[in-house]
């Protein structure tokens, strides 16, 4: 029985999504999770990340299929609109549940 429980804990840890687990990407995902969409500048201001840093993390999240990046013209000004994809939302929820589970299992 004990072996089963230990196995479950190890499985929970190994199931943590490493793409989301990086602090800057976690923050980006959290911001995009609580809004419908935001543009690059809004996310830059809110997260406090540098332009290059934000850009590279967004590319990784896009590659993972978690973030959709769209270019639009609003009043002739180009804007980069960002939103979570359906799988991005699901991945974030799963990450949150996994982390809760792992942390709840910690002794003390």
């Amino acid at each position, binding site marked *: 029985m004990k072996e089963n429980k230990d196995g479950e804990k190890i499985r929970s840890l190994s199931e943590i999504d490493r793409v989301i687990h990086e602090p800057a990407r976690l923050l980006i995902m959290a911001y995009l999770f609580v809004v419908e969409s935001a543009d690059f500048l809004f996310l830059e201001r*809110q997260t406090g990340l540098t332009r290059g840093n934000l850009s590279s993390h967004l590319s990784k999240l896009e590659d993972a299929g978690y973030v959709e990046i769209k270019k639009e013209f609003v009043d002739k000004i180009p804007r980069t609109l960002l939103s979570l994809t359906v799988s991005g939302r699901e991945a974030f929820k799963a990450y949150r549940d996994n982390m809760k589970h792992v942390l709840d299992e910690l002794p003390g």
Partner: protein
Amino acid sequence: MKENLNLKELERKAYRATFQDGFLDITLGLFLIGSAIAGLFQDNKPVRLIITVIIILVPLAIFLLGKKKITVPRIGMVKFGAERKARKKKVAAIILMAVIISSLLALMAMTHSMPIFLAELLKGFGSAVGFGLLAFTMFIFGGYYNDIPRLYLYGLLFGASLFLSECYYNKVGIEVHSSVWFGASGLIMLSIGISLLIRFIRLYPVPSEERTVEGE
């Protein structure tokens, strides 16, 4: 990056960010100052009508243009999710209820059909109580559901302006033109708005280059 990942707090922070430019305060302040100026022309209906149109259109134009030309280029754009939209609907429902209650009070007062206990309670306060209540409710609930605490202060100022303009003479015996109350409240709101706007412009300069994901 010292963010505490409380998702509700994060959403609230993002929402509040869109109100740190001071344009809401400037709009409300100008509206009250305009009302005060209109109050000075009570006997001149055409002038009063023109001023009324101006006090609605000018603050509204400043709000919309300010958001478009100053706020968005500095902090970007954001669309909020279903929960925030539901909150906005709640505010609208409460404001509608406040309008209905105040209108009923006004109607009862005009048709002399107010229940005796209510008439006794409101004796000497005229329409101020009804409209003061309306304004106060709108600001309090607007502040609560929109997470903008300074709207509580504005609710007090707005309600107090209406209340004092009706009741100050009755209770204190010194005549003060109602424009003084509205003008003073409006100036306080406008000053807060302008100081917020100055801070906002200093804090968030317009980025020199287009913000996009590199390689896109």
